[in-house]
């Protein structure tokens, strides 16, 4: 639940504005489609339709500084905007462009790069995907091997990226590449690449549910100019870390999870599945989610984590992904054989028939893996813990 007593007067006024906007703009068909979604990853088409509506208020770039075209919302306003969207079932916005690339280019880009990247992003003309993981570099991201060889002023890229969400929809990709033949992090550089460049090919990866969310992207002698390099050779790891911090920590999941739990509970009650054990499990999830919502608010938004604040993004990422999986598992534990088959909702090509919530149960197992596996997150939390208290 949103702890409204934590809000000041101006924030309450903003909250009312957000709610009025959602009441006017969020039509039930959009919400129903979002509710039926088979994973927690934003749906490209529906997400962008919703972004078109947010664009009128510049709320699709709410937290960007006004000087770069954003709405300049405070962290708390951005929290409220995102929380309420999630709670009311607004489609999740694909994050790779507006949430990741935009702030990263604002932070590291030259004026020319900002001018090239930001306007089409804000206008909804460009769609981005993220080229980080490789077949041989998952948790250990710094071991990426895809190589950008310098030839005069230009670079030639060879290698491949994998688990690339939305590559089938994107016209741009940001990639972490190696620009020197050694294993150090100083050999990494960050590039912005047009997917239409000759030599870029996308191969779909079908998941256990038959869903197509991920891809492998191949680079065969892909030639790019110096304008594709962000922040200089050797700066790739710093840029990637900045971006990963956003991926792990700058989102508000509380509203979406609260809606998900309410819908799960309603479904189980309607089906007469709530015995004492399920009642207990629901109360526990409710309590843990309440704690998560407050954690997200005070650590994520207001930096109130004390000595452990530097680990806030990591703690939040572990917490929401594990909550998500637990919700799906309670649904599964309370189901019957009717869940074996499709429930009549339309399927897209290749998708296996099963209720959306059950497909979610498979697809959401990716959440504790993506964005840095939860085990890597634990390593990072520990580092902060040791710095804060280890020498006390």
């Amino acid at each position, binding site marked *: 639940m949103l702890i409204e007593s934590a809000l000041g007067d101006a924030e309450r006024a903003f909250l009312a504005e957000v709610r009025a906007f959602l009441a006017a703009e969020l039509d039930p068909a959009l919400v129903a489609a979002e509710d039926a979604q088979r994973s927690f990853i934003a749906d490209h088409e529906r997400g962008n339709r919703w972004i078109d509506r947010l664009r009128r208020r510049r709320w699709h770039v709410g937290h960007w500084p006004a000087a770069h075209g954003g709405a300049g919302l405070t962290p708390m306003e951005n929290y409220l905007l995102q929380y309420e969207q999630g709670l009311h079932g607004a489609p999740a916005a694909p994050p790779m462009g507006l949430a990741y690339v935009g702030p990263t280019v604002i932070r590291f880009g030259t004026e020319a790069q900002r001018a090239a990247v930001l306007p089409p992003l804000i206008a909804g003309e460009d769609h981005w995907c993220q080229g980080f993981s490789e077949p041989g570099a998952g948790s250990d991201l710094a071991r990426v091997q895809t190589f950008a060889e310098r030839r005069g002023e230009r670079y030639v890229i060879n290698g491949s990226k994998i688990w690339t969400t939305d590559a089938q929809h994107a016209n741009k990709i940001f990639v972490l590449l190696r620009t020197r033949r050694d294993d150090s992090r100083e050999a990494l550089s960050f590039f912005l690449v047009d997917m239409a460049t000759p030599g870029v090919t996308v191969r779909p990866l079908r998941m256990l549910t038959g869903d197509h969310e991920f891809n492998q992207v191949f680079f065969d002698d892909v030639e790019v100019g110096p304008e594709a390099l962000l922040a200089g050779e050797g700066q790739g790891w710093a840029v990637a870390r900045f971006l990963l911090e956003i991926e792990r920590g700058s989102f508000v999941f509380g509203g979406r999870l609260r809606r998900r739990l309410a819908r799960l509970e309603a479904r189980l009650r309607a089906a007469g599945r709530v015995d004492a054990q399920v009642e207990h499990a629901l109360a526990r999830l409710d309590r843990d989610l309440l704690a998560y919502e407050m954690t997200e608010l005070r650590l994520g938004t207001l930096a109130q984590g004390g000595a452990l604040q530097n680990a806030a993004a990591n703690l939040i990422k572990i917490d929401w992904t594990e909550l998500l999986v637990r919700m799906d598992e309670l649904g599964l534990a309370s189901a019957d054989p009717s869940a074996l088959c499709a429930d009549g909702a339309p399927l897209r090509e290749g998708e296996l028939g099963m209720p959306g919530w059950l497909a979610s149960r498979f697809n959401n197992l990716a959440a504790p893996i993506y964005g840095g596996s939860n085990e890597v997150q634990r*390593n990072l939390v*520990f580092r902060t*813990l040791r710095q804060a*208290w280890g020498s006390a």
Partner: protein
Amino acid sequence: MSRLHPSEERAALEESVRRWCEDRATVAAEPRFVAERWREIAGFGWLAAVLEESAGGLGLSPSHASVIAEALAPAASQEPFAAQLALGGWVLARARGGVARDALLETWLAGESLVALADGDPAAPPWTSRPAFWGRRVGGDLLLDGEAPLALDGMLASHCLLVVADEREAKALYVLPAAALERVAREALDGRAHASIRCAGLAAPDDARLEFEAGTDAVLAEAAWLHALCAAAESVGLLRAMLRASVVYLGQREQFGRALIEFQVLQHRLVDMTLTLTRLESLLEVARFKVDELGLLAASPWIAAAKAATGEEGRAVARAAVQLHGAIGLTAELALGRQLRRLTALELLAGTTAQHEAHWRATRTA
């Protein structure tokens, strides 16, 4: 401006309590209540913080009591702050003024006297009606009979607050000097000096009866929820200290030729403890916001969530802290062992984990 940023009062309170705890770190192992230290706590105004100004208090929201309880936890192993504040001073301050009440409240605020709430059935949820004594009119006198099996801090108290049901089953509170009652010491696992309290045919003077504008039941229920909030906060304070001690200990203790903290499996255990602690801190903050917004009674679902969680999940954090310390963690040599005893007591006090869990389950969607 968001109200999430701690108020100046709260920040100042936390800071002053923390300083006191640091100064007292060397004497925190004292296994008994020390009157001098209690008067110090009173002298800082921590007992007065959340009482109404008309009763000699500072008028802060009751949530601030939990801020003090949390900060005091690591060092104040024998100072009965939570119970004295919630079940003693809070109740006295809510009562209508009178000669006996005013005098007692004054010495209580000065840390010179303690009071013990003498109520009934310790196995029932403390926010329910639990008289321990029965009053009967004989001539002009009210005679009291009964027994309170577990009056917290009963052996330290100069006065007891007796929860009495009269012949019409209406409840009332009578404040009587402890010397007039039969007290049997019941020392607790955390070293606290509780008592069972009895009387038979004891005449209670009319001016010993406390009157409450809000009603006796409501004030006793408020006191119970304030006690629960403070107990949850004290638990969080203890758990943070136990986690911290575990990080330090693993850094110092060498086995297999290196510091234990170099082992990833132990690092991840520390992180899981941190995740749980963060969750408990957040639930405590939710409860505080709800108390500020709605008052103690209406905030009971969220106080219950925090208390249930500190019991259930705190148990796991404490067990992990002992596990990481090894056998030394099961002795009283380190603060950890004493903290584990107090944490265990807190799980059973102010409503058990199971009672709070049931209250949360029943009221969460209300």
